[in-house]
């Protein structure tokens, strides 16, 4: 679980990160200087209401968007200097995405869905099959490999999505409201699964608007109007944070 970060254990570091959308004559600043450190193995919750900038922060963390200024260092790599090709590669190897709507491919089997990130990592077929089977087993759906998403429940779909996010052994998992579309019981199961992954050492960044989930996180970051209004690590005495 979260321990005090040492420098080499910092997996994500944002410094003075800003994002401004230029829409014609109007400049819309969405992130206004974010400073953040996330350590390996932490379960981080980013909370905020809609319009707080959490989606933009998520996109930048997921390297689907680039900051206007500031620095983003992922596992020692200065991301803001990378081109589109490198970003795609890093996304593929370092980040595991878990979406609110699961975003599974309806026409592919469970096995093939889990394989997708490995396909883009040029992993050979036999390795992919083996790894997909392992991961499906890990999320408790080893017997569902040949099923299609339409034959699964919402919770099972999200489990498959989680298995898929793990396939390339990413540096962290980026979960966007992973329980947003699930009922309470299933949500609980999914959170439990995520906790299990975290216990085994996975770094998890979860974005949510649901304050009730706060108790699950090692590190809670609250966003409001493009600023961090609360970082629970501050209570641990992080010297870099002023809030």
């Amino acid at each position, binding site marked *: 679980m979260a321990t005090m970060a040492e420098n080499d254990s910092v997996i994500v570091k944002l410094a003075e990160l800003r994002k401004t959308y230029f829409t014609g004559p109007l400049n819309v600043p969405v992130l206004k200087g974010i400073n953040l450190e996330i350590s390996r193995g932490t379960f981080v919750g980013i909370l905020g209401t809609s319009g707080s900038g959490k989606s933009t922060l998520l996109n930048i963390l*997921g390297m*689907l968007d680039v900051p206007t200024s500031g620095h983003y260092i992922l596992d020692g790599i200065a991301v803001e200097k990378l081109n589109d090709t490198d970003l795609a*590669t890093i996304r593929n190897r370092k980040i595991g995405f878990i979406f609110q709507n699961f*975003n599974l491919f309806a*026409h592919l089997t469970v096995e093939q869905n889990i394989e997708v990130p490995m*396909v*883009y990592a040029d992993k050979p077929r036999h390795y992919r099959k083996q790894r997909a089977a392992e991961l499906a087993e890990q999320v408790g759906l080893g017997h569902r490999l040949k099923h299609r998403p339409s034959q699964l429940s919402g919770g099972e779909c999200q489990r498959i999505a989680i298995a898929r996010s793990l396939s390339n052994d990413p540096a962290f998992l980026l979960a966007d409201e992973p329980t947003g579309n699930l009922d309470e019981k299933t949500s609980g199961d999914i959170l439990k699964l995520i906790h299990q992954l975290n216990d085994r050492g996975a770094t998890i960044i979860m974005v949510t608007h649901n304050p009730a989930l706060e108790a699950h996180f090692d590190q809670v970051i609250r966003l409001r109007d493009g600023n961090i209004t609360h970082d629970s690590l501050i209570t641990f005495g992080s010297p870099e944070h002023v809030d």
Partner: protein
Amino acid sequence: MLIRDLFRLSFHNLLLHKVRSTLTSLGVIFGVGSVIAMLSISEGAKQTALAQIEAMGIDKIIVFAEKPPPTSRESSDQGSVSESYGLTERDFGHINKMDNIDRITPLRNARKRILRGLRPLDLKLVGVGQSFLEDSASTLVRGRWFAPADFKNATNVCVIGSEVKRKMFTLGKTNIVGGTLRVEGQVYRIVGIIENDIGTQYPGIGSPNDLICIPMVTSNALFGNYAITREGRSTQISIIDYDLFIVRVLDIMHIDDTSKRIISYLQKAHSENKDWGLLVPLDLLKQKEQTQNIFTIVMGSIAGISLIVGGIGIMNIMLASVYERRKEIGTRRALGAQKLDILFQFLIETVFLTSLGGVLGIMLGLGIASLITYYTGMPTVYLWWSVVLSLLISSLVGVVFGTYPAWKAAQQNPIDVLRSE
């Protein structure tokens, strides 16, 4: 992404929408199909025509007698009419002495009625020169051709064409060669049977297979240059030396000059009387080839237009498909797909589609061609290069019209997909 995975993925996506994929490639299917069918039909027609032309011999000039149109005086006459026309002994002598002439094979139609029992047959009794067998591109199937002695002694012998044998004798009858044949009271001993299997047709005479050939000297000795024919109450006397010259030239390169010289001689010798005609098989061959080339260009243009139309149809569907599959594209990008991976995925899908259209089109085209042959008897010829070319072009259509949609797909912003829907 591994190329094999890329192909598997694209193919998989097409199989997912079988009906749509087939409908999308309809433009290409019909474009390629019509091209293949038309090419097969035109090639069949071309080869038939060329074979017929070639059968007359490309080193030959065919000079033939043509009956001039009857004047009003003649046609109103109920009694006997006498007319003199066609190629003369003098023409033979003149042409024979021209440069670049190897030899002339003359032919004269005796204009006899050939009957089997009481039934008239569409056959001709003709006097021919010694070289007729060779210069008419016929082959001896039984017996012998005329010997020099037959010409020298004007013997009453004949060599019959294969159709003559079929029409005049009972099927299965043996020892035809050595037997006799009676035409208008005259008896000829049959010494051989010839056959022309490449479809040679001479103007006014027809196929060598329909001829009962006798030596020219025999013909002259028996009939002179007269022919008396009766039709109803009118009797017609034709005075005609020769009906046909098969002129063989020494050098094909100068065949045009030679034919021009023959024409100018005949124009002078026969003054205004257009009772002759001339054709050069080589010229016909060239004309036919030119016509064929024009036909090919026209067809190529039609094919081009139909393929462009088909291609635009496919581009349209692919653009719609890119829009419809934004979520898939976004998810793939988030999971690590490069822009190039997306681009190639869509491009290969389009090329698959058009190539599939090409394959189905080829099958359709060949099917239509064989149906036409089956029902109309028109020969059609399958051209391997047209099949290869169609495949190449249909794939090319895929590349040309698939690039823009694929590029559009690669440019999709992956952020869109992360936004809650």
